[in-house]
Every structure is written in C-alpha cells, then in structure tokens.
C-alpha cells in the first residue's frame, strides 16, 4: 500500500451554512488523502458532515447558504476549491464521478435514460450522438442491465430502484473517472438489492481500477468493501485507519461505542444492547471542545477545553482523542 501514489489530497476543508437560525458549522477542518485505486469508506451519522465534505470538493452545494471557509483539494495538480465553474464542469462527471443517494430524485424524470447517459459522454468526451449512444448501451451492459440497447429509450420511472441506481453508476462511470464518490449509494435499497449493487461495484473496481470514496452510515457495508475507513462525528474525522485495524482495534470512544451498539447476526446474543447516551452535537455552536465530550465515557477536563487533533497512534491509524490508555 505504501508505494501507491496519492490521487486526491484534501487539506483543512471547512464548510458552514448561513441559515435563518445562524451559522451551522457543518465541516470543521477536514484533511484526508485518497490513493490510486483505493476504496475509502467514510462512516458517520446524519449531520456528521460526510456528504457536505465531499460535495464541497466539487462545489455541489448551493452557495449561499453554503460557504467554503478554508481548505485545498489537490487533484492532478489543480486545487479543486480554486477552480471556477467552467473548469469545474470539466472535472465533475468527467474525472470525478458522483453517485447520489437517491436514484429517484437524481435522475431527470422527463428525459430518457439514453439521453441522460449520453449527456456526459458528449459533453466531456466530445462523442458524436451515435457513438455516445453505442457507449451508453455498453455502460448499461457493464452494470448488469439486461437488454441494454432497448432500455435506452425508457424513462426513469420504468426502472426499479435497484435498476435506477445501476443507471446512476453507469452515468458516473461514463467518462472513465479517476475518482468515484458514492454518497450512500445503497441506503435507499433493500438488502438483497444492496448486495447486488455492492457486488457490481466490487467487480467494476477490479476491472476499471478507479479510486472510490464510499459514504455510508452502515458499518457493515464498509467492513466488506473498504480498504481504509474514516469515521466522522460533528464535522470532524475522529478516527481513520485500515479497515481491519479499525474494526478490531478501535481507539476513539465514539467508534468503540458505535461498534458495540450494533447487534450481531452471528455469535452470542447480547442480553442488552450497549448504547451511546445523549444526542448528536448541536452544530450551531462553534466547536471549541471535543464534539463527543458530552456523550463520552472517558471525558477529562482537557476534552472540554481543547479540541483534539487527528494524530497518528500507530502506522496509518489516526485518532482525534485526548484519552489514550496505552
């Protein structure tokens, strides 16, 4: 893993929203890197800032109310944050593909699938109408949609949820992206369909070799596919490490708590679930202490005074926590 080169380097991204109720500090200085061909899982609950971080990279957030306060994101020698809209359009859907959570609302209901698939091909690759159509059919075939050619003339409502998500994946892959950002791609789907989609992504990753950022709240999904995992809480990455290390040896009390709250499908049945007491943090307040301190079982004075920074505890394993029993 060590000699893989970095394809995306994100430094200190902060994003906030100006709302009627005041400022919302959604993302607070996030840094991470993505290596070539790697699958990075980003895990967190709603409001932890995982989607906002990724959408900030491509400026997919409406601004205002959103504002990217600081940060850089270097991708192929460019800083994505500094790009103007024309330059960004070349990256979005081109070198960086995006799959959204809800395939129902992210496809245009009044345009045929074939048209929607051909759009990025003609826009980014300058293909002719005929060639784009041919490639679209290939893409649908690639994601396992039977009778691909015929289905190009169908509208999104003629596809089931799982099929629509396949179309979304085909669209994101249309221009051979270097990086694919998948924002909760299976959350809206049933388990058996989720298993199909995960299977396809695994296969495509082997064939096409792109790097993937997979955003999810489901620790199980990430366990099966990710190489590395970043856990987010209250707009921060609180822990980051290789998947096996992070699951077998979690260091942050939040990660430990999350893994303990989940009931298991095999093994001993716990008499009672462990739970993390309290509520997720209020993002209206500017964070000056550890965001997890009010719910943490190891809170010390320092946790309420200073926000911990993400530091290396072990090779590749980073934790943002003052509590260190070792």
């Amino acid at each position, binding site marked *: 893993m060590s000699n893989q080169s970095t394809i995306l380097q994100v430094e200190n991204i902060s994003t906030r929203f100006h709302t009627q109720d005041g400022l919302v500090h959604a993302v607070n200085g996030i840094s991470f890197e993505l290596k070539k061909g790697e699958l990075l899982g980003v895990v967190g609950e709603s409001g932890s800032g995982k989607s906002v971080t990724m959408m900030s990279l491509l400026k997919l957030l409406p601004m205002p109310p959103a504002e990217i306060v600081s940060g850089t994101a270097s991708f192929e020698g460019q800083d994505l944050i500094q790009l103007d809209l024309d330059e960004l359009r070349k990256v979005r859907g081109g070198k960086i593909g995006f799959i959204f959570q809800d395939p129902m609302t992210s496809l245009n209901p009044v345009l045929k699938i074939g048209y929607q698939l051909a759009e990025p091909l003609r826009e980014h690759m300058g293909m002719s109408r005929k060639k784009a159509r041919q490639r679209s059919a290939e893409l649908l075939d690639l994601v396992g949609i039977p009778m691909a050619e015929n289905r190009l003339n169908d509208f999104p409502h003629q596809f089931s949820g799982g099929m629509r998500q396949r179309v979304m994946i085909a669209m994101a892959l249309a221009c051979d992206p270097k990086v694919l950002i998948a924002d909760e791609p299976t959350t809206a789907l049933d388990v*058996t369909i989720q298993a199909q989609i995960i299977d396809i992504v695994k296969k495509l990753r082997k064939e096409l070799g792109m790097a993937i950022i997979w955003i999810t709240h489901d620790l199980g999904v990430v366990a099966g596919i990710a190489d590395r995992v970043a856990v987010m809480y209250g707009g921060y990455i609180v822990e980051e490490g290789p998947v096996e290390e992070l699951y077998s040896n979690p260091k942050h009390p939040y990660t430990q708590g999350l893994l303990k709250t989940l009931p298991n499908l095999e093994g001993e049945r716990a008499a009672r679930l462990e739970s993390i007491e309290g509520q997720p943090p209020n993002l209206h307040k500017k964070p000056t202490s550890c965001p997890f301190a009010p719910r943490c079982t190891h809170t010390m004075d320092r946790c309420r005074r200073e926000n911990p920074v993400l530091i290396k505890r072990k090779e590749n394993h980073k934790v943002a926590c003052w509590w260190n029993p070792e």
Partner: protein
Amino acid sequence: MKPCSVGESGCGKSTAGRVILQLIPDSDQDGVPDDIDSCPLERNGLRNSRLDMQMIFQDPQDSLNPRMTVGSIISEPILEHKNFQAKERRELVEQLLISVGMNPRFTNRYPHEFSGGQRQRIGIARALALSPDFIICDEPIAALDVSIQAQVINLLEDLQEKYGLTYLFISHDLSMIRHIANRVAVMYLGRIVELASSQVLYSTPLHPYTQALLSAVPMHDPKMERKRKRTILVGDVPSPADPPSGCHFSTRCPRAEDRCFKDSPEWREVSQGHQVACHLV
C-alpha cells in the same frame, strides 16, 4: 412475547400490521397477506380494541401532529377513551414522559423542538397512554441514527418487562430482529414464507429467500465479511399488483423447479414450531 415480521420493502409487512389494527380495511383479496385473520370487529368493538392494541409508527416526523404540544399528543388517546380529570391526565402524561426517559416539563413543547430519537420516545409514550397489552412497532428505529437506535431498542425492552407488553415488531433490519425477537416471520410479496423461533431461524433457515436475505446482510467484521459466501439474488421483487404464479419467490429463487412456477407451496410445519412454505424443503 416478541414476534417479529421481517422482509423487504413492498412485501406487505406494514400492511399486515395495519390490517391487524384495522387502520386500513381488509379487502379480503389477494393483496392482503393470506395468513392473517383480521378480527371482523364493528366500529364500537374496534374502538374498544384500541384500548388493548396500539401502534408505534416508523417516522416520528410524520406521526406527530406538528401543531399539537407533546402534552396534548400524549393525552389525546386518554381524552378519547377515559374519563379522567384534567389533573389526573396531566399527572399521567408526566409519568409517561418519565417512563420513556424524557423530562416531564416538556409537555408544553412542540414536536419540532425535539430530535428524531426524542420524537420516537413521544410516539412510544402515546402508544403506552392507554396501557395496552399489545403494541405493533412498525419499523420504529428505521428513521433513527445508529447511536440512537440502541437507546430506543433498550427502552422498548425495558417497557416490555415493566408492563408485560407483547410486541409485533416489524423491521427490515435482520441483526436488530435477531436481538429483540422470540419468533420471526419472514415475508415475501404478501405472504409469510417462513416462521420459526429466532434461534432456529437464524441458525437453520430453510426457505431459499430467508437464506439469501441472511447472506445479504452486511456484518460489521471485515474478516468475517470478506470470507462469507453470498447468495446474490438476481432481479427485483416483482410487483405485488401482478405477483408471479405458483410460488411468489420462484422468479428469483436460485433453486426453483418446474412445480415452483405452477403450484403455490403449502404452508407446513417441518419441525416443532418451524413452519415454511417451500416445495423444496
């Protein structure tokens, strides 16, 4: 007792729950699950049955009236069914709030002032207001964050012990059902395909659908997750408006034979308390 009903979206598990409470009329046609004997109560009988049977809904956002205070939401069933004085009612509401782990001073607040987990607690307090024996929990944790789910499940278990409740717990989360249920019914396209005690169902699932469903659930252990053998079903759940002939699962079943496409499998008991509807078992 905690029987659970599990299945994917559109399989009829919520509909089954609602038909039991007659929140939607039983059309007595094929759309309604076959195995449920919904009590043909008349309106008055039905009204009284609400004293014993209550429901906790999936989405605490939609199931609480945004214009009513927490106090009036919880006291509505009491007002409707019992002749309580205002003071008694207020005391009961406060007690209910305490029993679901909330501050009794919250009675004059509105639902929007609370988080999802707290709103679900309000919904639970309302379901408890008439001290029912039986509560249908329709995906009570599906809309909640992972760290909050365990809180609500623990609360439901505590309340069950305290008040001796019976739950029909409807969910698509197989790991959570394993934790909470005594008995589990697996549904597919409007029919129960397998019913067994939780222990038996998870260790020896017999129906091919149950097997596929269990193998599709991601486990939060990278080592085990990568070693597991998966049965990945092809295709989608067919439309319940036009279900396949024979066994409803035949179109996706990896082991389907000729007769599966023709004859509907019989519902039979294969061992003590373990029932399944499949030709191949």
